């Protein structure tokens, strides 16, 4: 068995289908009414599978965003392997750090333009594993929601930044977290991601 330190690439987050991403993707596949006609920002897209669910269920436009270029490559390969390249006119790939770079704002404007507010989606699959980072993300999400009215969908197995009371009260921005769905994780997923047996989908409101 190869050991983790033998991995040639640093922190290959895109190499795993995280429990949070799995629940979010399952939710999207089961809710075509939400996905059809939507404009989607897949933030921290990883292997790109949530974007693929949107493309297969009638999204108008998808921005696949991950700061790791290898993640974008993995997403492209996954789309190709699944015969979804014909969607390419609807897809934009970017490795811009949307949290820090102001000049990416036009790209988000462009994504959500002439799409009804209810169809503006922002996806975060398993992005809340670091409470400091979570604080930054929440501040950014609040700005986006107030400007574009986006529907923020979060898939997560209830890692500490989303569950610890002390942390939830300590974030700069308050928010409410509404549970939309819960899924039991298959045994092989639990064996790969220790301690988690279920994953959930939440809608975040500021």
């Amino acid at each position, binding site marked *: 068995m190869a050991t983790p330190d033998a991995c040639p690439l640093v922190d290959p987050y895109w190499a*795993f289908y*995280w429990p949070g991403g799995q629940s979010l993707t399952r939710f999207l596949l089961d809710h075509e009414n939400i996905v059809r006609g939507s404009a989607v920002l897949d933030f921290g897209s990883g292997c790109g599978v949530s974007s693929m669910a949107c493309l297969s269920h009638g999204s108008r436009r998808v921005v696949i965003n991950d700061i790791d270029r290898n993640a974008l490559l993995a997403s492209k390969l996954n789309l190709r392997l699944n015969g979804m390249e014909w969607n390419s006119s609807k897809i934009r790939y970017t490795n811009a750090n949307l949290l820090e770079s102001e000049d990416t704002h036009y790209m988000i404007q462009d994504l959500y333009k002439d799409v009804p507010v209810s169809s503006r989606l922002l996806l975060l699959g398993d992005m809340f594993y670091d*409470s400091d980072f979570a604080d930054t993300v929440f501040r950014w999400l609040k700005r986006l929601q107030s400007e574009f009215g986006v529907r923020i969908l979060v898939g997560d197995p209830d890692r*500490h930044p989303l569950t610890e009371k002390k942390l939830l009260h300590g974030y700069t921005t308050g928010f409410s977290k509404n549970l939309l769905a819960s899924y039991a994780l298959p045994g092989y997923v639990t064996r790969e*991601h*220790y*301690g988690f047996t279920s994953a959930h989908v939440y809608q975040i409101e500021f």
Partner: protein
Amino acid sequence: MRVLVGVKRVVDYAVKVRVKPDKTGVITEGVQHSINPFDEIALEEAVKLKEKKAATEVVAFSMGGPKCQEVLRTALAKGADKAIHIEVPDADASKLEPLHVARALKKIIENDKFDAVFLGKQAIDDDANQTGSLIAGILDWPQALYASKVEPDGKYLKVTREIDGGLDTIKVSLPAVLSADLRLNEPRYATLPNIMKAKKKPLEKKSAKDLGIDVTPQTKVLEVSEPPVRQAGGFVDDVSALITKLKEKGFIKA
């Protein structure tokens, strides 16, 4: 149920330990260290209980020098949710005794509610086998030591223990102290996705001094020495030579 699991940083079980020339201890510099294997078993059991929804949170604990954080990160990668490091200067770390660790555990439990303390039955470096009983005594909690099977049962733990005469099954009410024996389970490996997401799990550091834990040693090491070296043997050419030799030495009758 919130479970506090003690993980001690020890010289790895695969390393051949060497005694320091001045006989004050064993050489630890530049030597591979890891989680005490029995503590790993205790941790595995806690994580299993979490996966069965019997435990809500698993917190790993270690007391020692700054490098204890390495074993705590490993514990987090193996499924612990949080970690607490009670730090003592490196110079004091090798002199820590089970009583100091038990007192530190008590402090943590006073500050934060836990329903169980899981530990390995002993550490492979000092083989002291004391921390479990000491913490149970200090807290006045029931103890279930040398567990080979753990079954949660509401406010109780049903524990099968390995004892000299066979197996002993007991039921302890929570909160309780449990120590893990070798056959309780087979610990998992830390896999890459778990290592990656464990990097940001909370690791709280407190100094023993801040907590007011007195780490004055109560025992003094007089001398540490290597086990006696086995004498080299000799070769004989054939069976008759062997018998002659044995007769010479008086091991068989002439």
